């Protein structure tokens, strides 16, 4: 189980994360929602080792997630909002390069692992193309495949639908749900209410760097009025989208 306990983070004197605590079981999804700038992405960046928390802990099965780069990448895989694929490398190299340079795989072992993932994510036929030659959906599948290549136990996804056609939101939800079924600890930050409504997991509404309200998605669907902050957030955003 991933347990984040009392995590705080200041940036230029401003409290971006304010004593955030949450837990994610293996095979389940934590959905961080909230408006832009409430700290969702910062929380993911702390988990992924891109930012350092000023206080608090992140424990995976009772052990702190190491700050060391390689150990961190073995524990946490990150799917960025804009994918951050390596533009000058082919689809295949986007997966093999981190495996070779980051995890010490041999070329042959890295290619074998990459081809397995490319097949799984229906990208095998694009193996020799460059990210710039892929569609948005294909880029995202590649970003997920790359994050999974090193077999991390936690997958962080930052605004997974924001750079995609709205019609793809359902497909993305299926992919995320599938990751949870495969046993990953999945942490998703999003303000896409369609995506949030389509996923099953634990909902966390963030406001001003803190968790303002949380509940299970099933619990929420049965009794929306009980969780009025989350309900209000989802309703307001639906109104805006409409």
């Amino acid at each position: 189980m991933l347990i984040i306990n009392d995590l705080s983070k200041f940036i230029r004197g401003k409290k971006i994360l304010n004593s955030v605590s949450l837990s994610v079981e293996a095979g389940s999804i934590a959905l961080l929602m909230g408006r832009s700038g409430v700290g969702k992405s910062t929380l993911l960046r702390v988990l992924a080792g891109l930012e350092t928390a000023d206080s608090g802990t992140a424990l995976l099965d009772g052990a702190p997630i190491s700050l060391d780069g390689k150990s961190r990448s073995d524990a946490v895989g990150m799917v960025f909002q804009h994918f951050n694929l390596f533009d000058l490398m082919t689809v295949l190299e986007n997966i093999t390069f981190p495996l070779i340079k980051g995890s010490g795989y041999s070329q042959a072992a890295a290619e074998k692992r990459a081809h397995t993932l490319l097949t799984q994510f229906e990208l095998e036929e694009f193996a020799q193309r460059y990210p710039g030659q892929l569609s948005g959906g294909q880029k995202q599948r590649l970003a997920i495949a790359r994050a999974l290549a090193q077999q991390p136990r936690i997958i962080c996804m930052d605004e997974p639908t924001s750079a995609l056609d709205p019609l793809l939101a359902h497909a993305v939800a299926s992919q995320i749900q599938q990751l949870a079924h495969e046993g990953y600890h999945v942490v998703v930050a999003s303000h896409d209410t369609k995506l949030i409504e389509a996923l099953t997991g634990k909902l966390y509404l963030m406001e001003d760097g803190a968790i303002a309200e949380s509940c299970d998605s099933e619990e929420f669907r049965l009794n929306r009025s009980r969780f009025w902050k989350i309900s209000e957030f989802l309703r307001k955003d639906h109104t805006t989208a409409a």
Partner: protein
Amino acid sequence: MIDFSLILQALPTLLRGLIVSLEIAFGALCIGMIGGTILGIGQSLGSPLVRAIIGIYAAIIRGTPMLIQIVFLYYLVSVTGIGLSPFATAVIAIGLNSSAYVSQIMRAGILAVPRGQREAAKTLGISSRDTILYIMLPHAVRVVLPALGNESVTLVKDSSLASLIGVMELYKEGQVVISLTYDALSTYCAIAALYLLVTTTLSFAVYRLEIFLNRHAHH
């Protein structure tokens, strides 16, 4: 006005000088590119102290004429008794000068690499060294290739300053031709044409390289 038969007669001498000019430019280019890239990395990713030292170096080099730098190094070599030929002295002086300009070009290129590329590499456990070598530099070079191309063209032209310390490069050989023929106009026309031929070829080669390196771009 322009005596083409004289130019034809003088061509072997001028070509001999051109080869020396190209050798100076190539040597200086190697020093400038390698040194400038290392300095550029240091100035964009190094500690504040490293950045400051490189900044001062670049300011001194860029703020003084190359002519003075060549002559200064030539006399420094003479005074200290280091056994460097005028040719090697010219290559080093022009190369060091180029490294200061290349460092600023590379710095701009490195800063232009999207932050996400570096962040992705970090989350994937790729070391800083491999991130710079395999991810950031290839990106940066593509961005600054036109500027680096200009720098290499400039180096070919700047190689003529080596004549000041007696290196028999194209300009110096031209002066020998003039002293024998008294036809400065024809000789300088021939020298200018040879420089133009080299710099145009170089510019075209850089342009083709740019197209080749950007073959992966969005379609």
